[in-house]
């Protein structure tokens, strides 16, 4: 299969010279500039039989990275039995990244793009109904961004009337970081070791200032 998908990359590159091969440990993968995404995806679907959009998501390379957000598509061919990974860097400001919507090609992209918007705040241009799907309407943050803490951030209840009547906000998870946390890729043993985080605060004793 790998040889036939390698042909896909070179065939696409003839049409779209800005497409480059992407590092990958398994399937064929390509980087596509945002302007070419729609046309390239259509070519993949119609000419190379990648008919099933199996997954659509994004990666946040953390604050300050350029580009910070990358949208990743996985296509599967139900006839050729192969996958291809398509990645595109988001355009626009860091706070409001943008990517083209592929809902015109796959109806199923609708929910995937809503989820990616919900979790990362990526705006899909051309999506007819871009609103939150897993979090509630009016939630102010994008939880899968790297600057969002694992414990969450206190917010108001979704319904202002309920919030006013109860006076209760949606509070952050009780243990910042969970009971066991290992740090990413650090070789400092005492830092990398999973350990019980400071849980000495509870409802009765105040949470220490971070």
């Amino acid at each position, binding site marked *: 299969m790998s040889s036939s998908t390698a042909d896909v990359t070179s065939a696409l590159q003839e049409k779209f010279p800005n497409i480059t091969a992407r*590092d*990958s*440990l*398994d*399937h064929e*993968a390509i980087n596509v500039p945002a302007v070419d995404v729609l046309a390239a995806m259509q070519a993949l679907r119609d000419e190379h039989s990648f*008919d*099933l*959009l*199996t*997954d659509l*998501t994004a*990666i*946040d390379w953390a604050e300050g990275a350029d580009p910070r957000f990358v949208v*990743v598509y*996985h296509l*599967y061919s*139900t006839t050729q*039995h192969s*996958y291809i*990974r398509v990645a595109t860097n988001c355009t626009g400001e860091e706070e409001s990244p943008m990517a083209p919507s592929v809902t015109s090609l*796959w*109806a*199923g992209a*609708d*929910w*995937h793009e809503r*989820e990616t918007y919900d*979790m990362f705040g990526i705006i899909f241009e051309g999506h007819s109904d871009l609103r*939150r*799907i*897993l*979090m*509630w309407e009016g939630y102010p943050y994008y*939880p*899968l961004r790297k600057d*969002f803490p*694992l414990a969450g951030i206190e917010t108001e209840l979704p319904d202002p009337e309920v919030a006013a009547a109860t006076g209760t906000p949606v509070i952050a998870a009780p243990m910042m*970081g*969970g009971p*066991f*946390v*290992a*740090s*990413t*890729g*650090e070789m400092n*043993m005492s830092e*990398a*070791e*999973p350990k019980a985080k400071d849980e000495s605060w509870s409802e009765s004793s105040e949470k220490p200032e971070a």
Partner: protein
Amino acid sequence: MATEFAYPDAAAKNATGEFETEKMSLSMGPSHPSTHGVLRIQMELDGEVVTKAEPVIGYLHRGDEKIAENMTYNQFVPYTDRLDYLAPLANNMAYAIAVERLANLEVPERCQAIRVITAELARISAHLLGLGAFGIDTGAWTVFMYAFTEREKLYKLFEELTGARFTTSYTRIGGVSRDVPEGWNGRVDEFCDQFLPILEEILAMLTRNKIFMDRTVDVGVIPKEDAIAYGLTGPNLRASGVPMDLRKDKPYSGYEKYDFDVPVGKTGDSYDRYLVRGEEMRQSVRIVKQAIKNFPEGDWYAKDAKKIFAPPKDKVMSSMEELIQNFMIVTEGPQMPAGEVYFEAENPKGALGFYIVSKGGGVPYRMKIRAPSFCNLSILPKVCVGMMVSDVVSILGSLDFVMGECDR
């Protein structure tokens, strides 16, 4: 003098044109017996006909992907139990293989066979529940009772193997948590032998059942093109006539060694989805019996992967090298190279995918879980329009989704 009596409906008699009806909005769920969990469907009705159906999801959102970024690979295994919580063993396997692809690690044949047996038993257990719940949705209680009797036997086997009935957490990266107990394979074989006639009995209660057929035949038809466009996978896609089965198309864990058929539907209605699931259970039994017959000897975990799979406990207690090895794996996690992989396994509900982006080390940088139930549900607004409210119940039952996986 006789006066002409004006009948009250005279105006209606003389009126031209259609009846004006008012649209009614109906919220079904999030805690409704036929939504199988916390799914809410915001419907707009014209009489009893659905004109618009908008699923509202996210009630069970736990942020699994965020959690995964904050713990080592092995620590995430219990979270995979809670995706499709009706087939945790299949989820465990899909996740473990995804991470092993990242490490470019192939587990020994015995381990592969164990995983295949557990995954297929999980498929039987998930489909049994799916059938039972579908039966209840369409008014057949008995099927549920029969199905749960069989599931109980499966749970006994799972408990013996993994120590847990429901949340098994059985796999580790590079192997499984323990080898199969003495005589377990024989008990699985016995289960299969007694299960086949009972399965026929269960299916016979529905397959030619007039009430069941009235509720399912030509209800919720999903054409082939729609099924692919919406990213349906698993039995729902196969019922629409697409013979996609990743166990056949992209074999993993040694599935290429087993002989089994992929059932495919004709019209893609609720009845076809039921038939496909029924046949899949027969095929799963076939696979399990083959795996037990040719059960390989040898290691049940990747012995050479010293930075990935923890050494046996007795060695840890007596040997310095193994102690260090164990310590490093527990504290830093199984060590992975940098890079990205995407792996999908054929789970009972469809293709469960894990997209892992690693920067190296024991913790993923980003992990996306591609949940089949999420994609399968996204077709609901399309397939429900024009159906009766009671048909929506039947469609939901036939799509067989799990909200734990859909909301993650």
